[in-house]
Each structure stands twice: as C-alpha cells, then as structure tokens.
C-alpha cells in the first residue's frame, strides 16, 4: 500500500450557483486517521466533502493532494488515489453485491487489463473487510439498509485508495448497522488509510473520530481531537442547544446529556 497521502484545502471557496457556501476555508485531513466533519444542516459540510473529492469545482483556492492541485489530475488517476461514497449513491437495478464491488476496480482497469490478479485480490479483500462473503451473489435490492451501505463502502475499499471520503455513511441506519459501519471505518484507518466522514450525529463523531472538524455557516469553528474541542459552548454555537458533557465511562469520549433548547 502506498504511503498515506495528504489532502488539504487552501483558501477554498465553493458555491452552488450564485450562493456562496464556503468561503476562504483551510483544512487538512490528518493522515491515517478518521476525521469527522460535523455541523448543523446547511453548514456546508457535504459541500466541503464534495469539494475535497473534486465533485465541486472551487471558485477560488485549491484542494491539494500531496501538494498537487486535484483539478489538474486526470479523473482516473484521482480515482486511484481518492475514493468517495456520496450520500445518494444509486446503482443500476439488477446488480449483485459482487458486481457492485467489482465496479470499484474500474479506475485500475483498461481495455487490455480487464481482470488482473490484483483486481481479484482487491475484491476478495473488500468483500472480507466488509463482512459480505455470504451476500456476494445477492442482488443489491434484496439487502437491508445496513448491508447495502456496507456493499457500497466495500466498492470504495476495492478501489484501494489511500484516501476515503464518506458522506453521511450511517444516516438512515439503525444503531446496530451504524455500529457495523463505524467499526469498519476504524479498521480501515488502523490499516493506514485516511478517512473523512460527514456526520450529522455529534455523539457518534465524538466516539469514532480521531479528529473533528466543526462547521457552521461555511466556516470552521473548531477542529482537533473530540475530547479537546467539544465543549458545551461549542455545542451551543453549532446547534443552538444547551447540554451537559460528561466523559463516557467506557471510552473517555464526551457524551452529551441533559439537552435543552436555549
């Protein structure tokens, strides 16, 4: 596996049409760690992730991958270095789990390199990492929400990129399925990948992320280790909610209790 790669944004401004969403933002993903991007609805966290993955061209500023402007990288090369799971990922109907995961190898394949030993191993490992061995021949439509989400993540794992960006990978999943996804994310980071997740649940972000980026109105209001940056004042600033923070007796990460509207 390639050494972890550095992804950073410099003076980045992104907009939807004429509406500026993010202005003059700087951020860097710590290599080999899990970064969670959190903030209230409409704060620009998904837009930032889209910008980091080049789905969104910047108005000004740049996103640098190991110092190179990602706008200048060929599409396939970028796809070999950075994988993305967007929020509304849709696939053509009738695909099996295995079919979907194999599509993750596309950036590595070509007309005369359609299925190499590398491809086979990468897919087998992705299937195993996501615990989908028993489901590989099932149609995607026949899976539960959590299984389907793991299949999509497995597709991005099969891409074998050092960087993995996931947009709300656990929304619409129940507690058990959320846990499956977070444990998978932790394992991927332990194997040396750099991950960034957009999350709307601050509690999960505290629990599973190594690094937290808190956003509001298109700006970063705080970033750092969750235990250090998450304060009662920050929660109020982000969500307009008063709370009491206590350390989790099991992990030491902050837990939000006694929530009330300010």
């Amino acid at each position, binding site marked *: 596996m390639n050494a972890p790669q550095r992804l950073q944004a410099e003076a980045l401004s992104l907009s939807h049409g004429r509406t500026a969403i993010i202005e003059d933002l700087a951020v860097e993903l710590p290599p080999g760690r899990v970064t969670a991007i959190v903030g209230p609805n409409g704060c620009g966290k998904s837009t930032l992730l889209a910008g980091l993955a080049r789905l969104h061209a910047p108005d000004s500023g740049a996103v640098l991958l190991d110092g190179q402007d990602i706008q200048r990288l060929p599409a396939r090369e*970028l796809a070999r270095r950075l994988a993305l799971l967007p929020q509304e*990922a849709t696939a053509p*109907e009738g695909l099996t789990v295995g079919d979907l995961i194999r599509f993750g190898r596309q*950036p590595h394949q070509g007309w005369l390199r359609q*299925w190499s030993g590398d491809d086979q191993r990468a897919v087998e490992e992705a299937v195993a990492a996501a615990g989908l061995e028993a489901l590989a021949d099932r149609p995607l439509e026949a899976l539960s929400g959590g299984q389907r989400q793991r299949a999509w993540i497995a597709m991005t794992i099969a891409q074998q990129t050092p960087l993995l960006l996931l947009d709300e990978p656990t929304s619409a999943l129940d507690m058990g399925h959320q846990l499956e996804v977070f444990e998978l994310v932790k*394992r991927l980071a332990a194997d040396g990948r750099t991950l960034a997740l957009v999350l709307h649940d601050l509690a999960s972000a505290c629990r599973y992320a190594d690094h937290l980026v808190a956003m509001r109105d298109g700006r970063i209001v705080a970033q750092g280790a969750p235990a250090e940056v998450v304060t009662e004042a920050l929660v109020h600033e982000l969500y307009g909610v008063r709370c009491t923070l206590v350390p989790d007796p099991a992990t030491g990460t902050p837990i939000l209790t006694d929530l009330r509207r300010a």
Partner: protein
Amino acid sequence: MSDTLLMPSRAAARGLDAGAAERVAPPPGYWRLARGERHLLIERRALIVSLLLLGLLAAASLAYLCLGQQVLSPADAWAALQGEGDPLSGFLVQELRFPRLLAAWLTGAALALAGCLMQTLARNRLATPGIIGIDNGATAFAVASIVGLGVSLAPPALALVGAATAAAITFGVASGGDTRGYRFIVAGIGVGAVFGAVTQLLLARVDIDTANQAYPWTVGTLNARPGDAVAVLAVGLALGWPLAMALARSLSLMRFSDAVARGLGVGLRRRRAQTLGLSVLLTALAVAVAGPVGMVGLIGPEIARSLSSSRGVPLTASALAGALVMVLADLAGRLLLAPIELPVGIVTAVVGGPWLLWILMRPANRRVS
C-alpha cells in the same frame, strides 16, 4: 484484520503476476482470456444473447429475401444471391430485395444503437433520439427541399443537415446548465415540436402531387432509399460501433449517480458529449436513409436489455435487435397489404405504440432508472 491481508503492496502483486504461475479466476458469469499481461473479460450472457440475435437476424433476413409477391424457395434465393439461377429471381434478389435488406440492417442497427446511447446518457429508457427532435428536424429539412424547390434536390443530404441542426439547437437551448440528460430531453421535445409543426405547415401549403412526393420522408420507409446515403450510413456504422464499444466501460458507470461515476474516474462532461455526439450522428445518418423510424430506437434497446444482464450496457445486442426489428417490420409492411406497401415507419409505430404503453403500465417496471 492484518495490514497485509487488507492491502497487499502493488509491488508484491506485480511479482506474483510476473511469475505467471498465478491462476486468476474470472468473476461469476464471465470468461477470461489472458495472454501475458493482457487479459479480457467476456460476459457469457452477452455473448450468448448476441449470437442468438445474430441467428434470428439471419433467419429473418432469409425470409426477407424469399418472401414477397414473388415467393422464392430459400435455395433459389441463395442461388440468386450468388448470381446463379434464373434472371428474374436474380433481378428480384440482387436489385430489389438485398439492397433493401442491407438498408434495413444498417438503419435498424444505427437507430437502436443511437437509442441505447441516448437512454444510457439520460438514464431514462424512454429517451430516444426521436424524442429529442432529431427525426423531426431531418424530416422538416427533407420535406422543405421537396416542397420548396419543386424537385427533390438531395433530400438525404438535407435530412442530415436537418438532424444536425435540430441537435445543435437542442444543444444550445439545453446548455448553460449542466449536461444532464433530463434538461436535454425537455429542450429536445420542444425543438422536435417546432420542426414537426414546420413540416405540417409546408405540407399544408402545397399541391397534392408534391405532398405525395414528400410523404415518404414524413413516415419513414425503405422504399425510396438513396444509394449514397446507404453507403455513408455503412461507413458511419463501421466507425460508430467501435467508438460506442470504446465508450462501453464509461457508459456502464454513467448508469450510476453522477457522484459515483466521477468517484470511479469517469470524466463525465467529456464522456457525455462523446455519447451524445455519436448518438446524434448515427441517428442523422439513418434518418437520411429511411426517414423517421424512431420507434426502432426504443424497441431495439428494450429487447436487448430484457435479454441481457445489467452488468453492462448492451450496445451490440441493441444494434442486432434493432436490425432484427427493422427487417421484420419492413417484411410485414411489404406483405400485410400486398400489393400495397406499408411504410416501415408505420409498422414500427403500430407495434411500438402499444409496446410503449405496455412498458409504462407493466406493474413490475424493472429497469426504469
């Protein structure tokens, strides 16, 4: 999970490949052909479906050569095609039926391939080049050449110009936003309506003889195929099919949502422009031969998709199915009301209309994506 298990180093993997002792198993449903560092995957089902359609096309083509007002036995038809047998059959097959069969193959394949490309681009199985106004543009220009000049001055060339004009206007109207298929379809429907109205207006203002002369261009027929246009179409298809195959890998990813396709390394903007351009070109060349037989662009890919797996986009199967539909429809048009001939465009519309309704009303609407 150990590091080495999850992510083998690329160098180590290469080393294994170089050893050549490695056995790589193809994914389920594929054959793998390997020679050194080069390897191809062939989807079994796609190959079987293509061979099946090819067989049906051969059978339909033989029937096409045999049947008509003068019925020939398959042996006689074959002999006539070789230039043997009696002169009348020879004339019938070589001068009349075979050139027309060739035109049916080419137009059917081109229209269905163009339809498959357009449907993949728009992620909508109802999107055909006909629906986005290209057919109507071609018709309007061809009719204008007949009506306006009194003589039919190169209607096929003008049909080409018309198709290109309609596509360019649709392009112009639809751009400004992103190149997404949906906006393009809406713009195309508007452009098509305008050109349709122009055709009607032209026909309403001329005498009956001129209107009769222009009539084939308004319905689609293989009766009055211009030889040059057939040759141009043959060249266009000979180039267009490999180009479509070269786009196949990107096309199969373009069926996913945009962000997924981009994440997997598809340069969407460029690929979409290429797909669109190829679809417009194939349609224009086919319409210049046969007039607007748009339904083939709907029926051909639909047959191909229902037979194929959803792992890829069935380009070859669509082209073969389109050729098959065109041959059968023209054969039916020649036979049903003989000695009167029904234009192939009317036959495909009569069959295609109910087909469309069936697709829309089928309860298990499997692949509208």
